[in-house]
């Protein structure tokens, strides 16, 4: 369990915001979620990196947006437009991991709730599931019969991507 140092822990439980992309349910540590919004208008910018959809204007702050469905290569799965949400996250962008204070918008199919998962119900991700591009999964939380994939916000974007995005947004917390 030494590898779970980057998940915010309150006593012996972890509080996560659960959301859905495709059919699977994911969880992000509560400290890395700034706000949940209905999708805002995304403005694409010229000569933008391929993985970025564009930027949004949230109360004057310019925030780059990444579509998680594309990121997880699940864009073909149909979803309910009414339930689609935009999660504004902290710590995802910056020259180094955890160093940046810039915000990043994630487009997800729906946001469920704030869940408190006891640590004993969290298991590490199986080795087989951790590919070269899947090292952002920190563990699997079990809540009843549900299985929630816990993500590390700091590793969702690669080092180059973070660098590229460092200049794109100005939204800070």
């Amino acid at each position, binding site marked *: 369990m030494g590898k779970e140092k980057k998940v915010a822990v309150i006593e012996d439980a972890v*509080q996560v915001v659960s959301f859905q992309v495709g059919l699977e349910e994911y969880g992000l540590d509560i400290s890395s*979620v700034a*706000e949940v919004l209905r999708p805002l208008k995304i403005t694409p910018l010229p000569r933008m990196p391929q993985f970025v959809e564009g930027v949004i204007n949230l109360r004057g702050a310019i925030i780059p947006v990444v579509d998680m469905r594309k990121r997880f290569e699940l864009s073909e799965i149909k979803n309910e437009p009414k339930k689609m*949400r935009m999660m504004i996250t902290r710590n995802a962008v910056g020259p180094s991991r955890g160093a940046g204070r810039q915000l990043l918008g994630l487009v997800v199919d729906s*946001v469920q709730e*704030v869940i408190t998962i006891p640590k004993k119900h969290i298991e590490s991700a199986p080795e087989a599931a951790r590919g070269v591009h899947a090292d952002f999964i920190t563990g699997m939380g079990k809540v009843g019969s549900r299985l929630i994939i816990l993500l590390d916000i700091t590793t969702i974007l690669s080092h180059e991507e973070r660098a590229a995005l460092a200049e794109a947004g100005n939204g800070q917390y």
Partner: protein
Amino acid sequence: MIEALREKIRNSIGLKFVAALTVVISLLMIMGTIFVARMLMTGQYRALETRGREMGRLIGTVGADAILMKDVLKIENIVSDAARSQEALYVYVQDASGAVLSSSFTSFNRENPDIKTVLSAEKSEDVAAVAAKVKKKLNALEVPVDITIEGTKLGSVTMGFSRTKIKRDAWTIVALLLGTSVGIVLALSAVVYVMARKMIVAPTAEAEAVAWNISDGDLTQSVRVQSTDEFGMLGRGLNRMIVGLKGMIGSVRDASIHVGSMSGKVRDISEKITNGSREQSEAVEEAASSVNEMHFALKEIAGTVENLHASSEHTSSSVLEMAASVDEVAGTMTGLATSIEETSTAIAQMSAAVKQTAENVEVLSSAAEETAASANEISASVREVESNAKQSASLAEAVAADAQQLGVRSIEKTIDGMKKIASATRQTADVIGRLRERSESIGSILTVIEDITDQTGLLALNAAILAAQAGEHGKGFAVVAAEIRELANRTASSTQEIGNLITAVQEESREASEAMTGGLAVVGEGTRLSQDAGEALRKILERAGQSCDMSRSISRASAEQARGIKQVSEAVDKINEMTHQIARATNEQKSGSEQIAKAAEKMREITRFVKSATIEQAKGSKGISAAVEEINSKVGMVNRAAGEVRAGSDLIVKAIDRIKSIAKVNTNLAVGLNDTVEIMASLSDSLKQGVEKFKI
């Protein structure tokens, strides 16, 4: 007086000459005198004018200075002298501007009595005006002269002269000339008159006297001829005439004596001729009467012969007529024979036709019987038709009544019901439509609610996140957020349910609306169908009425037909009866026609016999007519000879008549000759006496 003079001139040649001469010479003299007088007066006037002009110039020369100086006294002196010159009436001087410089006292010749009278009447002092008046009244000759020195006009002198003396001189000369010419005319006339008397009147009177003597029969006097002019020639001609007349009258006297003796002789001879011709006339009368008697006798003979001829001709013509009529009889006989032949053949044909008729009548009779039977049958069937037609008429009436009472009314009710259903359905459809609209508006409200619920959920989530981030302090807030979130979730679910319900309501109302539309269409169709049914029923009614009428008319017609058929059958019965009678009559006729045929045969034989006899008779009559013709020709010859004799006697009578008339004419001529001789004798006596009168 003038009439007497004209008579004298007409009777005297000398006076004629004198008058002509006097007129011609007088005319010439008068014309000459007038010419001379005019010449003289013109000359005098010209001389006077010239003198005036010279005087004017003189006055101009003398008075030029005075005019320049306006020396009135000198001008007055000069003017006064000039005005008193011979024949001058007035003189006045004017300066260049036309103002008169001489006074009226000096300007006029007051010694002239005419001027005096004019001036006494005139009060004006204007010399020029008075002078113009004088000139006009006394017909003065006015001479104006301009006074000029070296080309400059200083003024003018105007002078008036009297024409009276010149005229007086001219009249004196004219009187002298006229007196002289009258003297010349008188002398010439006297000379001419004397010469005419001596050279024309005296010889003419002598010749006239001799001519009067000759007319009285005195040829002893002759004209004394002295001259060799035209009157001399007249006298010589008269003398020659007297000599000729003397010779002629001598010879006439001798001839008249001779005629007297000859006329006595002629009278004797003519008396003898008269007597002879009278005797001749009587003899001719006698000859004529005897010739006439002979002529009458001849005429009688001719008449008798003619009668004979006429009677023979008559005989011949009647014989010919007889022959012709006999020929005609023969021809007619032949025609009769042929017609009898034809008649007999016609009779034969007729009897054959009668036989055929009898057969036909029998056939007819059987046919009539058959007709009667079939007529009866027809009558029965027609009666049946009639009863059937009556039945069908009553049925049709019943049908019509039923259709009227039941069908039409029920269909009308159906149509009304259909209409009500349609309106009700329409109302329902409207209500359902409104309901759907309402549910739709509820749906829109639900959408809003849903949206709010969603927003609330999202806010609750964010609140939960913030509460969690707040850690221990946010725990209570996290509970509230969870509850709000729970409420939002419940609201969402119930909203979802309501939405589902509304959708269901909408679906059902749409279905109901569709059903209503279908129902409306069905109702419309039903209405239309019931209207069609009503129309059809109406047509049925109409047709039923028609068929009823038709059945009735069929029934009526059938009744009439039945009556007609009854009549037909009666008529056929009658025909049958008559046919029977005809058959009987035809049988009788058949026997009669056979008898006729036999009689016709007999008649034909008799006719043949008569025909041959007639032909023989015709031959005999032809011989008679030839004999009569011969007699006729001989009598004709005798008649012609008698005619010739008669013509000869006619000629003789005519010749005798002509001779008689000639003798009568001769007698008349002799008597006329006698009378003429008598007249001639008396004429020769008177001639003798006339000739005795002449003295030779």
